[in-house]
């Protein structure tokens, strides 16, 4: 299967005058193939939002790519995300974005239908009537009554607004959709229906969705593959079932073990310590100050991401590198 998006050796920093640069991303490697939902999991400061900023190609100071290569592969054409011109050509048509807070991403003083029309007009050459008709049927497709098109954002509930935004992001059938915590602030019942909508549309259009969320439960329910990030690097990535059944990285293990479950009386513990300051990260493996299985080696050498089982990659010294493995291998998804 050809890749849709490749991330190779990506490092990015936030630089501000007078402050030491914050290493938000360090040597990130993974790739996406068509027609899958990939979840990016991790906690505050792990770099997941920075990753989305880089992928969307909307790099603005103080964020800067230090190293590495991020490219889209569309119909045999390779587009680096740093190529602003090419990116603006494919943006929304081929790669779109579902933002975090639907409350504030819609223009408060313009009716939904009008805003939707602008989005379509900017990317497709359709007649006015044609646009209107298609928008109307698409809005119904995402489970909204037609009247939302005549409403202002404040007249809709959070769930409805998020559906509107999802409709805007998928209307043009892009190959890749980046979703940044798409259900933050929604109540669980609504959250479930919105996630279900994202998955239905993904399957129907054969899109690839890269979904960032801090909630491991959401990844368990929705993602085909999960990437666990810690302190700016990929700690572990595997098909979701495998990752939750048998997590390999001590961070992933602790993270999953810290989640209480209904009907389960087992005592749950937090991971000791707190995530490192990325302006001055610890040497070696960044998780070593919190790791219960820490070895001398971990304090000096940053473990590479290696494939220890088919499609299961982990960056941890507990798992010896197979002789054949190349250092800093790029996990390639095989569908």
């Amino acid at each position: 299967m050809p890749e849709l998006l490749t991330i190779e050796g990506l490092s990015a920093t936030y630089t501000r005058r007078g402050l030491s640069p914050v290493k938000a991303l360090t040597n990130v490697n993974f790739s996406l193939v068509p027609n899958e939902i990939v979840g990016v999991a991790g906690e505050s400061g792990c770099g997941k939002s920075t990753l989305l900023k880089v992928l969307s190609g909307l790099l603005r100071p103080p964020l800067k790519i230090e190293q590495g290569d991020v490219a889209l592969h569309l119909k045999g054409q390779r587009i680096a995300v740093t190529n602003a011109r090419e990116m603006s050509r494919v943006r929304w048509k081929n790669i779109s974005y579902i933002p975090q807070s639907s409350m504030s991403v819609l223009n408060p003083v313009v009716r939904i239908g009008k805003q939707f029309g602008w989005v379509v007009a900017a990317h497709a050459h359709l007649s006015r009537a044609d646009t209107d008709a298609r928008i109307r049927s698409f809005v119904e497709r995402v489970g909204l009554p037609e009247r939302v098109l005549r409403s202002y954002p404040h007249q809709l509930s959070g769930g409805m607004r998020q559906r509107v935004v999802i409709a805007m992001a998928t209307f043009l059938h892009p190959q890749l959709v980046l979703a940044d915590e798409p259900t933050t602030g929604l109540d669980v019942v609504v959250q479930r229906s919105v996630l279900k909508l994202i998955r239905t549309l993904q399957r129907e259009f054969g899109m690839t969705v890269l979904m960032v969320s801090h909630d491991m439960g959401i990844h368990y329910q929705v993602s085909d593959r999960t990437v666990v990030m810690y302190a700016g690097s990929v700690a572990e990535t595997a098909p979701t079932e495998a990752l939750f059944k048998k997590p390999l990285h001590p961070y992933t293990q602790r993270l999953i073990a810290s989640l209480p479950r209904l009907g389960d009386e087992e005592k749950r513990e937090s991971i000791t310590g707190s995530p490192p300051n990325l302006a001055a990260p610890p040497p070696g493996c960044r998780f070593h100050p919190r790791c219960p299985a820490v070895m001398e080696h971990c304090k000096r050498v940053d473990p590479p991401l290696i494939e220890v089982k088919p499609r299961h990659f982990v960056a941890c010294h507990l798992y010896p590198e197979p002789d054949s493995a190349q250092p800093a291998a790029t996990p390639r998804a095989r569908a």
Partner: protein
Amino acid sequence: MNSETLATPTRSSAESLLARVWRLRGRHANPQLVAGLSILALFLVIGFVLPRFAPVDPAVWNRLPRDLPPSAAHPLGTTSLGQSVFWLLAASIGNSLLIGLGVAVVTTIIGVFMGALIGFVGGITDKVLGVLIDALIAIPTLPILILFAAVFKGAASVTALVIILIAFNWPWPARQVRAMVLSLRERQFIDVARFSGQGTAKIIVREIVPHLLPWAAANLTNTVLVAISLETGLAVIGVSNLNYPTLGTMIYWALQYQAMFLGLWWWIVPPALATIVLFITLFLCSSGFSRTQGGQHA
């Protein structure tokens, strides 16, 4: 997770206002404020220190020959009333600043006190005073000031003028402080302070007032500007106490004696220019102070 949370801790918002201003000289330069405060200091020296060295009282008429152009003896020449423009200007700057500062300090204190009180206490006090404040703000000040001043033409003392200016200007800070206090009151640390057994007065003084200081400094300088502007306006049309040298009365007399058309530019240009520079300076200070507020809500 964004650049904010990733960054090293923001500069301590606990720094005193002065420290914040001072530090802005360095890396996070706030050139506006530094420039504004420096020129303001210069004005203060000219207005309050310099007049002590005046060889003749500039307020008294006919002490000097009239209409002299600038010379070594009279750096900015003399007026048609036989005053030294230079020393008159220094005294006028001092008096204008005095009026401005007097109005601004009292206004800010009353405004902060009233605003904090009605914002924090709420209820019926808030409703009644809120309506009064809104009405006072909506009423245009200048015509009423002119009405007042005109009725007492000549008899109105500078103190009376200052009192009237205060009476019409306190509602502005009060309304803004009220709004700020209303939002501060919703902050969790206020509820925590209550459950620490703190009394209302202590909560206002210790928890709320520190958050208002940068704003109060901005408001203070801005009110100096407004007060001087109003006084100057009244003087220019001749309804303030014209025997009291201020920038406004100085311009008034220059206009009365047709300084502009008689070519006595040294009489009219210095006060006009000084007024313009003073206003720009005060504006720089006031907008500079409001910018230091940024560090507040880190």
